[in-house]
């Protein structure tokens, strides 16, 4: 186990190193940050001074050396827009995104498993047919369209739901303010969570169903039925447990993809999280923040994959972590 973690740590380091180099190579095409920091009418001389003070006139290698030196000490530079260390900005925005991802995951898990199991067991039931048809539609509607549709129906037309933002959040600890401990906050997270889960939910229903169907036709399930076990224990104890293995693997990968979808969801709902922050950073050519975000996301991917592998090991003891890592 220890060996496995060490391996992963080295991998994480390499991944972040490559990402940082990549970020520096594309820096020039991220735009000129002085355009966002200064007026159109500012003179060229003043603009040059500003670039100089930002260190943008140095050769790329010098800039990278400076960046890498600081990065090793945990300093990824200051955001031009927020005027704070980029990592601090990300940490402040992280809770909002994590809560949104958590709420969406919760919806996905609690809805996809029962529906997936049901559609596998009763494939010809009208509800199964309806679910499968709806999931095809769900998977093909872009997230932002779902989000705007929700806003239009439930906020503008019916007036039941708030249309944007996090509402009244309850401060928990440090930078963490939560949506889950006040009614207003809870109401605000519902539509963004539904929108974010809308892409993944149909996928998971289909995945659970497919895996379940496969397991149901396997010998041991037939044997269990034959020896007289009731449908409940067979489906839920034997079949479902084995269905979950691939679902967890795919789920781990999908969490990463969910980070990408938070960018869309957050910008439609003006959700003050990391995804929206990143989009704005790109618009404003806030290079330090863009770099820090991409490195941070790379780090999250490595961590999530590590966790998934460990979870996999727990569910299926046959998996050799060290050999895999």
């Amino acid at each position, binding site marked *: 186990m220890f060996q496995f973690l060490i391996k992963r740590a080295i991998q994480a380091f390499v991944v972040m190193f490559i990402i940082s180099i990549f970020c520096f190579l594309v820096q*020039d*095409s*991220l*735009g*000129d940050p002085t*355009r*966002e*920091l*200064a*007026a*159109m*009418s*500012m*003179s*060229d001389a*003043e603009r040059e*001074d*500003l670039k100089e*003070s*930002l260190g943008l006139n140095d050769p790329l290698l010098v800039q990278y050396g400076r960046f890498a030196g600081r990065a090793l000490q945990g300093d990824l530079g*200051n955001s*031009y*827009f*927020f*005027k*704070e260390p980029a990592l601090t900005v990300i940490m402040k925005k992280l809770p909002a995104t994590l809560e949104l991802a958590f709420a969406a995951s919760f919806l996905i898990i609690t809805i996809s498993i029962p529906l997936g199991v049901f559609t596998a067991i009763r494939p010809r039931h009208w509800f199964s047919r309806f679910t499968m048809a709806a999931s095809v539609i769900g998977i093909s509607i872009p997230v932002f369209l779902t989000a*705007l549709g929700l*806003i*239009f129906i439930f*906020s*503008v037309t019916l*007036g039941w*739901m*708030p*249309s*944007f*933002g996090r509402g009244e959040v309850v401060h928990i600890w440090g930078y963490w303010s939560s949506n889950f401990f006040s009614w207003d906050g809870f109401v605000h997270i519902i539509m963004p969570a539904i929108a974010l889960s809308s892409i993944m939910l149909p996928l998971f229903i289909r995945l659970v169903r497919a895996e379940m169907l496969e397991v149901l036709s396997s010998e041991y399930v037939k044997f269990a039925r034959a020896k007289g076990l009731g449908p409940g224990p067979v489906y839920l104890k034997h079949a479902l447990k084995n269905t979950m293995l691939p679902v967890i693997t795919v789920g781990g990968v999908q969490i990463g993809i969910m980070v990408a979808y938070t960018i869309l969801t957050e*910008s*439609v*709902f*003006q959700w*003050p999280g990391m995804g*929206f*922050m990143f989009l*704005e950073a*790109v*618009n*404003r*050519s806030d290079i330090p923040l863009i770099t820090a975000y991409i490195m941070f996301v790379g780090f999250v991917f490595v961590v999530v994959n590590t966790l998934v592998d460990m979870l996999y090991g727990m569910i299926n003891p046959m998996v050799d972590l060290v050999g895999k890592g």
Partner: protein
Amino acid sequence: MKNRLLITASLLCASLLAFTGANAKTLRLAYDADPVTLDIHEQLSGGTLQLSHMSFDPLIRWTQGLAFENRLATSYERLNDTTVRFNLRKGVKFHSGNEMTAADFKWTFDRLKVSPDFKGIFTNFSALNVIDDYTIDLVTTGPYPLVLHTATYIFPLDSKFYTGTDANGNDKGEIVKNGASFASTNLSGTGPYVVTSREQGVKIVFDRFKDYWDIDSKGNVDQIIFTPIKDEQTRVAALLSGDVDFIAPVSPNDFGQIKRSSKADLVTMPGTRIITFQLNQERRPEFQNVLVRQAIVNAVNNEAIVKKIMKGFGTTAAQMSPEGYLGYNPKLTPRFDLQEAKNLMKEAGYEDGFSVTMMAPNNRYVNDDKIAQAVAAMLSKINIKVDLQTMPKAQYWPLFDERAADIMMIGWHSDTEDSANFYEFLAMTPNSDTGMGAYNSGNYSSEFVDETTMMANMETDPDTRASMLQAVEERIYQEAGFIPLHWQNLAWAARKGVEIEWVVNAFNFPYLGDLVIKD
């Protein structure tokens, strides 16, 4: 015991009543972005000016009808060619409680003169002299016609509040563009609203300043909750669902939805930002031929662009100065005429046309990429084949600086609300020493335009000056120095009962201190 309880209970009730106050009015405001900083001298931008008018007051300000209105000045008079004297309002307090005097103006002026963004506006000013506590003289280096225009940019800062060093030992008055400073996170002005809390990018709360000097103002908003909403559709949805009271900007695509709604009102106004294309004469010898330039202007149906693409959300332009500016020349009218364009191309010897490159941003101006596509299609009718590239503004500006295409889009708003500013940046011969023509990517050059604009900047008689500026406008028109498209309109929307139509203006800094909410 019982009595005591009763008294406590009634006291509680009374304080609760006082707190919620039957008349307390809150405005929930949503713009597309919140101010980047609380230091109003750090960045010259629309957001900064909006904040300036909420938490500070200028010497004088523009009215909706483009006239001047006294604010912290009670009167002013021109003493001689280079000096204008302002008498200041007495008894004005800053948010910190300090009394405003002429010394604060002097301090503010000196700070503006070193602000990288604002010093350009004050180039022609040599000094602000304190005569006594409530009298100041603004002195210019030569005769300068735009003293009053510039005075709208002088919002006194609380010099005592910004003097000294902060917890980190830095000067509190320092202007820092690439990092945090005392002034970027703390504010003390004379304006109607005090910043009470701020989470950048998420929310700012403003409370009405209790000691605000302007007690004649009918404004009755006690609190403003400002949340930026970036997505234009979400912004409109937030208004229509009642989550916010006032939004800006509003995209022309959403006008119908707001007009149909019984809950909200739309206010639009002609704006002063001109949208143009420039023809690069250095890259393309064809564009040095005035006939070709005229042909192109004739080929572009900018009226159709305003009607179809902008859905009427713009005013078709034939010149740079919008109506109301001194340089606006009523003789100059849009000249779409495809046959004439074809004739001119023939006359110039380019009947068979040529190929050019064109670039435009896709998220800077309203419908910028669609406008570029339309213009490219219109030019194909006179056999000019356009290779168009559109891109986000972050990528566009570096390319604009490089003059990377033969035809480039640029929009311009005059910081001084005066015609000469357009010519200085867009039409005068580019000159890196004087800084003129900084955004003239076409390299259009006319001695007459250069000289007359400079002369107009020293002419203090408005009538003479107007005729000079109008002559410049006419010359650029005749020589087809650029392709004029339109002036972008402005739009705001508010829930019914929020009477924004009286406080918005063509400069897009609503005077929220005077906003009245009924109901």
